[in-house]
């Protein structure tokens, strides 16, 4: 970061320009009793070297994934990020720009968003994508609101096996909008959703059925019957999907999804605590006017040359205010660009290879873990992608497992004790293409060494 000087002469010049008598005069609107008297209680000044040493030691207390063999997923996934991603998004044209307020002047930004939208459509099989959302959770919640805007209904059937963090966001939005959420139970033996529950609970009050595929528990399902029953009842079918899985699995459009959203972080964005993440959302041409967020369109200028514009803007809040389709009127441009570069770089066959590698390793790992005495892989016979549930002996705690692995610089997975309060001895384990067979063998060996 650059050091910007602020000398007494600078201050005097600035005060002179704006016609203020003193710095204190700038705060004359703040009541006297609320103003700070004296100086802030800050540590004594330190030299640059002292500050560097202090901050390095603080930063050193963090752990970096590069030091660990990581088997945690649960919504944030470690994948290889080609250097091309940082090289392109690091260009100051992209890196420093805030959302364009005069968008058409930023043709490069609009073009990158247009390409992002095209790739999201290709991945999901849908017809229209918006320019992105903040994260997978908010995109999923927006698909709930969008469904209400389409058919005016207020009741939602939501899969129990949705990421609990997404569920929290969904419930927050639902409470504020007076929506009713009914939870579709997931079978404890197969991990699959209860289709009978959907049949008995769907009605002409149901706005949409919302599921995640693969689910939070890793389970992959063919949801054709869910979309059929939704459509028969005038409801929508909304899916949250892992974009990497779409390199291998049939797109949600093929099983009748009306809205597809998801977390774009696996596409070239690091796993950072607190983000930034990337939400994507796509839908049908029929419903495009109900889709929140901005959309970039391709057109021609007055000379017949290709040009990009923000299209369908009239639905957005800066024009339609309280009747806008959503409060979202910006997008996650830099992360969307990262995912665009990632997808361009790996290409459709590369993405398929990444997905297949994740799936192969995870399936190998599940088979090997199942051989360890006392450990069990849940939902036998149900399809999964790169994540699965492991049941450990009930005399063990997750903390003990975690510590045991942590000592060997491994991260064993994510505890499901909150998700399955009645049977807390379960954890979610994930393998992506950054792991190797050797990593997995070491994991399985470590698991076998646990005393219980």
């Amino acid at each position, binding site marked *: 970061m650059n050091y910007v000087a602020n000398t007494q002469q600078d201050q005097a010049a600035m005060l002179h320009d704006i016609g203020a008598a003193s710095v204190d005069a700038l705060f004359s609107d703040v009541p006297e009793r609320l103003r700070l008297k004296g100086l802030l209680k800050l540590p004594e000044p330190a030299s640059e070297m002292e500050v560097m040493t202090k901050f390095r030691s603080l930063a050193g207390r963090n752990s970096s994934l590069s030091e660990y063999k990581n088997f945690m997923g649960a919504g944030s996934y470690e994948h290889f990020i080609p250097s091309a991603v940082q090289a392109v998004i690091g260009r100051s044209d992209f890196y420093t720009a805030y959302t364009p307020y005069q968008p058409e002047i930023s043709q490069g930004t609009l073009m990158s968003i247009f390409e992002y939208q095209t790739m999201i459509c290709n991945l999901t099989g849908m017809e229209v994508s918006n320019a992105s959302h903040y994260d997978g959770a908010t995109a999923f919640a927006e698909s709930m609101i969008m469904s209400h805007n389409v058919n005016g209904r207020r009741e939602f059937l939501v899969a129990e096996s949705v990421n609990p963090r997404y569920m929290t966001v969904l419930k927050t939005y639902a409470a504020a909008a007076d929506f009713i959420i009914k939870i579709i139970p997931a079978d404890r033996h197969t991990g699959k959703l209860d289709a009978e529950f959907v049949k008995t609970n769907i009605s002409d009050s149901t706005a949409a059925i919302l599921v995640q595929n693969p689910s939070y528990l890793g389970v992959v399902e063919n949801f054709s019957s869910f979309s059929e029953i939704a459509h028969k009842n005038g409801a929508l079918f909304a899916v949250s999907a892992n974009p990497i899985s779409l390199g291998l699995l049939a797109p949600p459009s093929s099983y009748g999804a009306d809205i597809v959203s998801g977390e774009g972080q696996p596409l070239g964005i690091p796993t950072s605590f607190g983000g930034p993440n990337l939400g994507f959302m796509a839908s049908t041409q029929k419903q495009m*006017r109900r889709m929140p967020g901005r959309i970039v369109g391709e057109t021609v200028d007055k000379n017949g040359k290709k040009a990009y514009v923000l299209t369908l803007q*009239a*639905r957005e809040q800066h*024009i339609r205010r309280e009747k806008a389709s959503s409060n979202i009127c910006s997008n996650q441009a830099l992360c969307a660009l990262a995912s665009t570069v990632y997808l361009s770089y790996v290409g459709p066959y590369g993405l398929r290879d990444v997905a297949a590698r994740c799936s192969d390793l995870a399936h190998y790992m599940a088979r090997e873990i199942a051989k360890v005495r006392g450990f069990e892989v849940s939902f036998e016979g149900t399809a999964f992608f790169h994540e699965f549930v492991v049941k450990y002996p009930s005399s063990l705690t997750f903390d003990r497992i975690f510590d045991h692995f942590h000592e060997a610089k491994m991260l064993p997975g994510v505890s499901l004790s909150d998700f399955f309060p009645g049977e807390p001895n379960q954890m979610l384990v994930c393998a992506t293409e950054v792991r190797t067979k050797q990593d997995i063998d070491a994991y399985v060996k470590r698991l076998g060494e646990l005393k219980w």
Partner: protein
Amino acid sequence: MSNYPEDLRYTEQHEWVRVEGKSAYVGVTDHAQHELGDIVYVELPSVNQMIEVSEKICVVESVKTVSDVYSPVSGKVITINIDLEDNPEIVNEDAYGEGWMVEIEMTNPEEVQSLMTAAEYKNFIEEAAS
């Protein structure tokens, strides 16, 4: 510039009504289409939908903005102008004719009496402009 056909009744939200027997044809006025600019999309209600007076019945989207159209009368939607789905610009070209939006079978035809006449609407527009 704008015109105000004598045989129609008008609302303050710039809808017009033409009564034919039990039916009321509803659209937006020439003044409204002019203010909206190029209309790119008209969202129509479902046929057989019951509607109350002043309830939102259509949404008109132009290049500049999106506006709701409120029903001037209560009743049942019996016909919608399907042509507007593909050619919304008809509203700009012929607001009082081919640009009609819905036909409502009125449940309370008395409601029409409280709407503005052509002369009253003309005054209303001119006062607002001055």
